[in-house]
């Protein structure tokens, strides 16, 4: 399925949308497609909104942001996010990373909430009344709780999947498994489509099974400027450059015009930047073989 069709069918105005991936495997291609299709009033959830949600906020897709760390890693601020929050035009619901992970874990296990030892002495529960506490029925200890997060749609970028959507991921795993299992619909976007035999040859590497996948899309370089371990490196220069672009509304609008609205799909986006592939292509670092025999 094309990404255009996958987004058209699975992402609706007003949805709770998750594009997960901790630094690694962030589906910029899907974010750009949602911008092109001019989805509105989305509740965007992610641990780290990263540049992709900064772009979606700037494009007017977001009504609300649910998050735990909203910066440009190693660089500084997400300026569209900051303008929206400081200007009071974006609703926010804020946790810590552990809180967000726990929300997805509860959602994935279809429990109403998750307990964690956290937040004592912090101001986060004052800022977010959905962080509550419960008394342990066994020990009497007070534990923090966060509510389950069950998105309408979760989009995950993976290195490879078969046609049914059995998706394999290696490298940093983030919280994609929990987010996908918590979600009503799941779009898997992959670097490579492989035969089912390849998946079956290494089943421990499957993070997301076809049973929970609504759509499979093949989109090489779909995570750029994020990265795909073993395929291409993170485009740190782009992340550093985003500081200048996002600081200025007009610059940011110009970026979206050229690289999002101005292209039809990821293939065209890559064609505009032909030297990227050479600059970021991953080196070789193979693992030792594993015997699954019995």
């Amino acid at each position, binding site marked *: 399925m094309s990404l255009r069709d996958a987004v058209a069918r699975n992402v609706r105005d007003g949805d709770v949308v998750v594009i997960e991936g*901790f*630094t*690694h495997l962030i589906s910029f291609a899907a974010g750009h497609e949602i911008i092109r299709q001019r989805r509105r009033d989305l509740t965007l959830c992610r*641990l*780290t909104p990263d540049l992709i949600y900064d772009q979606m906020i700037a494009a007017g897709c977001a009504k609300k942001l649910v*998050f*735990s*760390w*909203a*910066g440009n*890693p*190693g*660089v500084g*601020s*997400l300026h569209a*996010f*900051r303008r929206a*929050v*400081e200007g*009071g035009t974006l609703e926010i619901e*804020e*946790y*810590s*990373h*552990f*809180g967000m*992970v*726990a929300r*997805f*874990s509860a959602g994935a296990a279809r429990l109403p909430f998750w307990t*964690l*030892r*956290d*937040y*004592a*002495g*912090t*101001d*986060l529960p*004052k*800022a977010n009344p959905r962080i509550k506490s419960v008394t342990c029925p066994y020990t009497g200890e007070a534990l923090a709780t966060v509510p389950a997060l069950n998105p309408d749609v979760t989009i995950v970028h993976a290195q490879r999947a078969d046609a049914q959507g059995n998706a394999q991921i*290696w*490298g*940093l*795993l*983030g*919280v994609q*498994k*929990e987010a996908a299992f918590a979600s009503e619909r799941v779009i898997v976007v992959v670097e490579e489509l492989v035969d089912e035999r390849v998946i079956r040859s290494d089943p421990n590497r499957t993070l997301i099974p076809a049973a929970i996948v609504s759509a499979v899309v093949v989109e090489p370089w779909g995570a750029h400027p994020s*990265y795909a*371990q073993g395929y291409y*490196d*993170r485009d*740190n220069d782009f*992340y550093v450059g985003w500081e200048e672009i996002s600081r200025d509304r007009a610059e940011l609008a110009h970026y979206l015009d050229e690289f999002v609205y101005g292209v039809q799909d990821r293939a065209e986006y890559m064609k505009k930047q032909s030297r990227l592939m050479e600059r970021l292509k*991953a080196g070789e*670092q193979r693992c030792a073989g594993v015997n699954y025999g019995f």
Partner: protein
Amino acid sequence: MAAVAARELADGEVVFVGIGLPNLACNLARRTHAPNLVLIYESGAVGATPSRLPVSIGDPALVTGSLMVCGMADVFQLFLQNGRIEVGFLGGAQVDRHGNINTTVIGDYKRPKVRLPGSGGAAEIAIHAQRILIVSKLSPRTFPERVDFVTSPGQRVKRVITDKAVLEPDDKGELMLAALYPGIEAADVKAAVGWNLRARARLDRLDPPTAAELQLLREVLDPKRLYLKS
């Protein structure tokens, strides 16, 4: 500051590594006196041996050659909440008299003057790591009497490493001047802190970075000066 922070780490310790200067300090320690330091990144890399200085804590170089890579639910539940982390390294836009850290907001939460990134893992790191080290440049703006927002509580803070001095909590948790950099006087430090900073009766003098530390920092670890700005 990176060299002073690196010396705080003992060989073999398990360290939860944050972004920026802590990252640099941990990698310096690993290449000098603490080759068996176990670096754990909240992104899921355990026992990482990055061959380049990671720009982010999710850099692919953290994965290549590490001992284990796990999901973030495992990092927070099985490592951090389980009590397996000995040292947590944190920075902050504001650090107050009691070692509380603010990385959330300057001004009122609902009408922020400056919206900062937020907690990330910093809230739970401050609660669960056995020993917290803070790394932050000294200035009255950064060291107010009270932070505008407590992102990470200060109870487990053991040392605050700045660019002029090291502060340590007294038995009630109030930060005191403990050690000075070469050429810095106590008055310089007091003038850069937003409360009436008390000093220990005997102040330590910190050694300047060695030639070997400087060479590693400037030529090997951070040749592009991503973190070594001064």
